[in-house]
């Protein structure tokens, strides 16, 4: 049987230990784990994700990977993506978005768009300071704001970017081989090779 009051004393010993311990936790590992935000910034882990962005290679206009296939628009659970296909001078649709908007006030960062994209073109960013004064205008990101280079992608998600690059490279090699084959083959055969080139599903 415990003396009445001993439990309270035991509890007070715990708070006292934490009180003193918090002054000796220089590494901020055990007790004082709070980050002093504007001065200390969190070191994000590689996989950390926030909002989507569009990857381009080299030139932001020509190197854009997105083909405006609208799969992400369809699959996005909160329906925050909006895409309009670009048209050439004759009014014929081309495989490039004219408009690509993501409303990040609606976006919930689930990265389903990333998983469903067959062209490795939409990826998750890790920015976290995206506040704005205007709820309606500023939080809709347009194409020019969304486009970020592959180098940036490699920088924020190195492992994932390396895997993506490898996949793209594999597809490119395959394509080149197919092209070489098709150059040799007859024109009729070329059409068949074209069909085989459809991109594989990305591994989810």
């Amino acid at each position: 049987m415990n003396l009445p009051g001993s439990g309270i004393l035991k509890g007070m010993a715990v708070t006292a230990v934490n009180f003193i311990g918090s002054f000796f936790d220089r590494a901020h590992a055990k007790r004082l784990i709070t980050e002093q935000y504007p001065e200390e910034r969190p070191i994000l882990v590689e996989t950390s994700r926030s909002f989507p962005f569009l990857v381009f290679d080299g030139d932001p206009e020509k190197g854009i990977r997105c083909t405006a296939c609208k799969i992400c628009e369809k699959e996005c659970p909160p329906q925050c993506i909006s895409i309009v296909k670009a048209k050439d001078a004759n009014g014929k649709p081309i495989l490039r978005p004219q408009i690509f908007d993501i409303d990040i006030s609606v976006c919930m960062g689930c990265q389903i768009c990333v998983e469903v994209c067959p062209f490795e073109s939409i990826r998750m960013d890790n920015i976290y300071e995206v506040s704005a004064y205007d709820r309606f205008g500023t939080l809709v990101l347009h194409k020019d704001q969304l486009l970020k280079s592959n180098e940036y992608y490699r920088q924020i998600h190195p492992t994932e970017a390396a895997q993506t690059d490898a996949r793209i490279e594999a597809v490119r090699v395959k394509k080149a081989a197919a092209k070489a084959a098709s150059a040799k083959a007859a024109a009729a055969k070329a059409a068949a090779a074209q069909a085989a080139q459809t991109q594989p599903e990305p591994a989810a």
Partner: protein
Amino acid sequence: MSFHPHTSSFNGVQGAGALDVSLGPQHPSTHGVFRMNVRMEGETITKLQPVFGYLHRNHEKIAEANSWLGSMPYTDRLDYICPITNNWAYARAVEQLAGIEVPERAEYIRVIVGELTRLQNHTVFLGFILADMGAWGSALMYAFREREKILDLFEWLTGARMMVNYMRFGGVRCDLPVGWLEKARAYVETYPAFLDEMERLLTGNEILLARLQGVGILSGERAINGGLSGPVLRASGVDYDIRKVDAYGVYPRLSFRIPRGTVGDCYDRFMIRLLEARESIRILQQAFAQIPAGPTLNPAVKQRGFKPPAGEAYGRIEGPKGELGFHLISQGGEKPYRYHVRPPSLINLTLLEEMCLGTKIADVMVILGSIDIVLGEVDR
């Protein structure tokens, strides 16, 4: 609304000394926007009526408009304290519906993240019930300190601390990053020390004992009839844990015990969580040792445009708060025909009035805290 400056505002008084108070939806300790209409005589509760719906967003309707995969991130937002187990319950229901096999490694990963989620839920519970009792946040802050470390693990694994969107039909979205297992194992090693600290701080404390023991007693029979589940059910002495009963995943290969109480009061509910957390550590240690290499996602399952065969299924898991089930009806299309969540938080409240009658208003908060609800799941 009429305004009478010199009359009392105590409307709806029934009999001498009765006082109707609406506790919530804005109240410091209703765990969100929960509301209870309470009738009191003095401070003793004579009637209690929970009012729901302040966080209602018709999750089920949204899911019926979304693809099967598209509902996965929404399940994160049901019980936002433990999103991974919500993912798991949904994935398991869909896997039952479509008869999908899950690779072994994925099952182990699910057990690991699921038990980590249980750890963090029970940790946070310990803090919140103390806050409900008016302890000025020490236990809560220690709990959040530890939860932070588990959330860091989740962020590393899934990319997000809370809204993980991690499970997929037939596995998990991505494999464990290099070094994750070691970090997680090292963390789990430190966890018993934290539990010891919490026990030193709490379990002997006379005020805490007086506040918890004998409050809100619930018999096992009533608990079963009321459909209660999880730690609340087991605290009432019912030996029922879906991890054992349904033996889903790789749980049959892991050895762990199911603690259950003998009295069924708030103290038992409190202690059951502590004991369960210790069992979770055992499960985690075994899972760390046993996890095999291999694929983490069944390659036969097409996630995008997923179309399960027509039919219906009820799949459930033992979530940290109780039985989390999904009742799904497919008509073979890309969207669920019916998607129903069996929310443990809501159904555990069924007997709230029964537990609270005759207790003091301060006890109501403790009983509510001991049930451990999350409004995201109650109101959906």
